[in-house]
């Protein structure tokens, strides 16, 4: 295809790659700059590592306090609540304290015994916490503190979806947008570009995918090790059933959230999600080096 312009931007502790098709180089650069500005603004609102973000301020709320938040933070939290319910609790944004403890363990600030006990304590605190997100207006209420938020499992996907809205506003119809290689959004004008071809691989297998107007996210043990965190127990000793999982969804927020969730879920639970969840298009997984793809309507 002619007129292909590619751009890269570093944000959210990773890098974003945007490729715009069928536009002039100048217009594509203008759009890319607006997209990256939007991602930076979203990071300022959603990152718990930014002391002035909405999420940092929610994490500091005391009992009976409330906080007005940005529309986008409100939207992201509402989707996070939906994903938590639909993923049987395996996707959970309320685990920032646990993440802080892991880090302290890795840095040698807490020893192994202290880390384990600290995780138990953080989980107990989380279980008695109540944070309400107002359904009517962008506002959060702290009924009982003890749960601290980290939107790392959903923020990049949400950012991609907001850029998709911007691209529609700018009348850009064909582009691919990757967040740290783990979430890929593909938007295409089928009359110009019917699909984009990608490949997923396992140790002993590979599969070609022709993708169009979809988002795909991956989670795996290759980069994060064989023991991963299970928000249902609050411990980081879960041994996953899969080597890697890919989730394709109508939007990037869902593919991002469910790639994390599906990595922890059992196969029957994943099959149920593929069959019933309207946002999820398909899930692929790797076991013993072999790939399997679960598609809607191909399941009994």
């Amino acid at each position, binding site marked *: 295809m002619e007129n292909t312009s590619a751009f890269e931007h570093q944000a959210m502790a990773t890098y974003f790659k945007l490729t715009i098709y069928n536009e002039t180089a100048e217009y594509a650069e203008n759009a890319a700059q607006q997209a990256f500005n939007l991602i930076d603004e979203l990071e300022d609102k959603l990152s718990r590592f930014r002391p002035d973000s909405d999420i940092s301020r929610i994490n500091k709320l005391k009992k*009976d306090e409330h906080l007005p938040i940005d529309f986008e933070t409100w939207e992201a939290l509402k989707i996070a609540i939906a994903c938590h319910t639909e993923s049987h609790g395996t996707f959970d944004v309320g685990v920032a304290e646990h993440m802080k403890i892991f880090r302290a363990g890795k840095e040698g600030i807490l020893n192994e015994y202290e880390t384990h006990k600290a995780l138990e304590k953080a989980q107990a605190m989380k279980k008695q916490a109540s944070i309400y997100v107002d359904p009517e207006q962008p506002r959060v209420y702290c009924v009982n503190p003890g749960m601290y938020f980290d939107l790392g499992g959903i923020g990049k996907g949400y950012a991609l979806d907001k850029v998709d809205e911007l691209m529609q506003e*700018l009348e850009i119809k064909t582009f691919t947008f990757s967040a740290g290689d783990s979430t890929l959004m593909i938007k295409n004008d089928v009359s110009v570009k019917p699909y984009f071809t990608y490949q997923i691989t396992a140790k002993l297998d590979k599969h070609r995918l022709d993708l169009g107007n979809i988002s795909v996210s991956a989670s795996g043990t290759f980069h994060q090790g064989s023991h991963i965190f299970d928000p249902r127990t609050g411990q980081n000793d879960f041994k996953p059933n899969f080597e890697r999982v890919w989730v394709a969804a109508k939007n990037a927020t869902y593919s991002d959230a469910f790639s994390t969730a599906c990595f922890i879920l059992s196969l029957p639970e994943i099959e149920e999600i593929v069959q019933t969840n309207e946002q999820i298009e398909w899930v692929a997984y790797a076991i013993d080096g072999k790939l399997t793809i679960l598609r809607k309507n191909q399941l009994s």
Partner: protein
Amino acid sequence: MEKSNRRDFIKKSSLFGTGLLLASPFNITANPLKAADKVNIAIVGCGGRGSGMIFSNIPKIPSANLVAVCDIVESRRERAKERYNAQYDANVNAYEDFYEMIEKENLDAVAFATPDFWHMQHSVDALNAGIHVYCEKAMSNNIEDAKKMALAMKSTGNLLQIGRQRRSNDRYRFTHQILLEQEQMMGRLTHAMGQWNRSKIHLLQPNKNDNLDMKQLKKYGFDTVDQVYNWRNYKKLGGGVVSDLGSHQIDIFNWFLGAYPHTVYATGNNSYFGFEQADTMATILEYDTPKGPAIGIYENVSNSRAIGVYERFIGDEGSMNISESTENKIFREASVPEEKWKKFEDKGYIANLANMKEYKEKELGDSGIKETAPQISYDIKDMSGMDKVYNLQAHTAHLYNFVESVRGEEKLNYDAIESYKSEVCIYKIHEAINAGGARIKIDPKEYEI
């Protein structure tokens, strides 16, 4: 729900927790104000910063009632109007002409997010029309106009707050008010350093649906389409990197050091991008602070953002990195006994980032020999003892402070007279750069209005 049921629900919530829930609690209310208690405000300029005011700041301020938006680019103002009305079930009007807007709308206040060269005339006219003004920095692109603005605030008695938002950032205010002034935690500050590094000066272009009429844009002082979208690159329209970026941070030097520079050295050039304005600059500022001499060192880089944006203050008892991003750490000088700073921890002002004592074993355990621990540093913990904690992002807090000042509930955190003093040293830096790199003395009287 019946009252007794509500009580039971709340009791159960606090015992077992509901986790994160989409619901409104019964016992916490946001206390919305009546319409008559609100400040009718309009936003002029619907570009990047104006959109931030409209969509991120105003909705979080219960006492602000957005009634109108204004922009000379039709698609920008109409998009802002439609999106705001849809998101917040509102009924704001959109105007091209500022003067038509203040004539037709019943405004208490107006906020400007427009190119610098328009600030003076619009601000002075609004103040004279009895409308309070919030104006984005810089006050103008020349010192004479900045002075006119401060004088108009003084003569009309109406409010004029300038948008250097760090002045309303809770962490900056806490650092200034409690750590530096009340506790004297850093001892004597001897150095202030700051950098704003960005990867590029991006050139913006019209979007496909921005229907521009050049004849009409000329009416508002723009000669080309590029001037409309990239006005910061033109000397007759804006102030360049020193005003756009440097003035935020040099203002903090002045605030924290409790003084304004008596001498500036500065150099800069446009060698990387070749625009009218300098894209690279460095300045050294000499101060006589109440505690003794101090030096400020400040730089702008426009071709790499690897080092980020931060301010750093060095004292003889402690030092700190402070920023609106992730660069926030406080360090104790090794010569200061740990016990001396323990009182700041005990008061809850700071937390030692390296101990996580809430999770440490109280008994000996294996605490003696293990992996190498990281360097000791601190961060702000609870902002107790401060006159006011906004608990809002700085841009929202600054506008909130303005709106509450219009209502008579607060005093401005950063009025035009205070801002003018920092603008003076900014224009002296401009002067030094334009002279090809010069040393300029500043008479203390030049800071006065």
